[in-house]
């Protein structure tokens, strides 16, 4: 039963010195204001990216359909567009978690809870890094699709033309 009475100590709590805690207390309200500003800027970025990903995904689906209708094969394109869809879903989910985490951090009474605020900020950074990773992964899928067009589809078009 003794362990139940021992307070939980988060790893981040131990990493903060008294001086750091004082600095956080002194500047956290300004930091929350910067977070709010960043949230507004990134809300527009999320919207812009989301709409563009949907447009590019529609383009890919249309070309893939046209390839099938013409009885051609381009498995790289199909795989890349499917990957892109999965990563786009991950981007949306991770952005939602990131947004919620920023909102929670902004609402914290940071002068009274500087350590909790810093923990929450650390979580925000991790979630933001996931969103950034999703963007990189989507770019990889888009590169793979581009590669498929140049290496696979163009060759397939030439081959089908010569066989006619």
């Amino acid at each position, binding site marked *: 039963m003794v362990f139940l009475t021992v307070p939980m100590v988060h790893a981040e709590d131990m990493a903060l*010195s008294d*001086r*750091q805690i*004082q*600095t*956080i207390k002194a*500047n*956290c309200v*300004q*930091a929350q204001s*910067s*977070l709010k500003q*960043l949230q*507004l*800027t*990134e*809300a*527009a*970025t*999320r*919207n*812009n*990216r*989301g*709409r*563009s*990903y949907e*447009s*590019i995904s529609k*383009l890919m689906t*249309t*070309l893939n*359909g*046209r*390839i099938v*209708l*013409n009885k*051609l094969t381009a498995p790289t394109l199909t795989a890349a567009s499917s990957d892109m869809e999965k990563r786009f879903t991950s981007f*949306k989910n991770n*952005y*939602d978690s*990131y*947004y919620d985490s920023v909102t929670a951090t902004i609402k914290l009474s940071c002068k009274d809870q500087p350590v909790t605020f*810093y923990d929450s*900020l650390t979580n*925000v950074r991790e979630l*933001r890094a996931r*969103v*950034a990773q999703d*963007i990189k992964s989507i*770019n990889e899928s*888009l590169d793979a*699709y*581009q590669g498929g*067009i140049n290496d696979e*589809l*163009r060759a397939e*078009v*030439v081959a089908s*033309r010569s066989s006619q």
Partner: protein
Amino acid sequence: MQGQNLKALVERHRFAFAIAVVILITFLMTAISMSLYVSSGASRLDLSRPGFEQARKDIIPTPDDKFSAEGKVDAATVDEFEKLYQKQRVYLNNLGDFEDSSLDDASLRLTPAAQ
């Protein structure tokens, strides 16, 4: 007996009772709508909220070129597609990537000043 009293009360104040029911239904529908608005994630993307004026200004129209779902696939088709595809990629490359240093301790001034 109680049921009859209630029935009589409703009969007597039919109009007031109808208004109360309508208000109750409105509350219920609003609660359902709000919960869907939040749980679907639409609230996070809704830039029409107060305070998001600047975000609304930062919306850049997406290239909206159409690519036909029908027709042959030849070199010209691939060229046409690539042009549209590249347009979207250029657009994407000009957007933020959630990677800048805005959240660093130094940027947020959470690092103690050197003594």
